[in-house]
């Protein structure tokens, strides 16, 4: 199989996009820290805080994957490698769920 990658061609986001994403990631990190403080001080409920914090984590992961990992360009070419892992990952937790309700100590 021939290697069709051209090393002198940068396909994907440019410098400005990278810096915008960096700024967004920094802001989202601060948001999750502030939400955590709000939960600790009982300004926000635990479940609301949990949802917001995990939601922020997912957004940050998507930003890193899309722009830094060039999935904005490569996703159609390799989605079939990554997508099954999401399904398997979710299934792994679902399969282990019965252990949550079993308390072996009592």
């Amino acid at each position, binding site marked *: *199989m021939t*290697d*069709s*990658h051209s*090393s*002198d*061609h*940068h396909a994907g986001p*440019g*410098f400005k996009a*990278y*810096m915008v994403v*960096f700024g967004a*990631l*920094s802001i989202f*990190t*601060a948001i*999750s*820290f502030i*939400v*955590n403080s709000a939960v600790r001080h009982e300004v926000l409920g*635990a479940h609301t*805080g*949990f949802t917001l*914090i*995990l939601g*922020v*984590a997912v957004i*940050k*992961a998507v930003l*890193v*994957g899309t*722009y*830094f*990992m*060039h999935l904005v360009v*490569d996703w159609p*070419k*390799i989605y079939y*490698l*990554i997508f*099954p*892992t999401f399904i*398997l*990952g979710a299934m*792994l*937790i679902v399969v*282990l*769920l019965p*252990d*949550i*309700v*079993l*308390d*072996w*100590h009592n």
Partner: protein
Amino acid sequence: MIRLMAHATAVHEESILHMGAPVPNGKLAMWIFLATEIMFFTGLIGVYVVLRNGNPSTREPWPIPEDVHLVEWIGAFNTFVLICSSVTVVLAHFALTKGNVGGAVKYVAVTLALGAVFLVVKGVEYRSKYDHDILPGHVFDRLSEPRGTQYIEKIREQLNGIVARPEEAGPALEDCKKLLAEMELKDGRSQLTPQEAGARVKEILEKHKTVPNYPELHLSPVIPFGNLWASCYFAMTGFHALHVFGGLVIFAIILIMAGLGRLGVQHAGFLELIGLYWHFVDIVWIFLFPLLYLV
């Protein structure tokens, strides 16, 4: 006639099948590897989610960061450090594709430095756990025998140490002396049960948290699910730190190549691949940080 020939050519081109994915071999291999790494960390994180939501109850809750000497802002700082390193590695690749080898080398060096900062901070955190004996198997999370007797012995040893250095004990000194007196052995047995001792230790620690600039008392509280927490914490962050270290080794190799004058524009693909690995390590920490430090 020409239209017929063009049609025939088009049909001929449609029938040719191209084998393999439309990406370079290296990128395909790296993404396959990252898919396996996703499953690896999903296993660790999935087990943590199950354990955390399983047995803990209102009476015996999962440890909060304060119980296990976990400082949230340190985790947030480490998150920011890794995000910065992700930016610098992608800028390194961007520079190399533009032919700017010197700029790429500088960005790679900064990435290496930021990764090293992350590991140093992680080392400081691990040292804190070691100092407070929050290690798997060392935490007193249940006081059924023989752990109960071991707990009594440990607390008496710690109280003797506090009383022996009164200048370090601060306002807690009198409470510690009182507790030690109550834990004096009579006929080889403590007057307090392990559970009572644990409750008294908790009271002393709670009371002295309210004292401004209170000295840290080296008293081990009972931490329900503390051993499970420690196992999860060290397994997840330990494996992640190993992955960070692996990335740093590759960055060092790139810098050595640059130092020997062997790094060039032709290595942009290679740099992109290590960048993919590094971004994945960053994404794992993006999930580990809130799961361990925040929620």
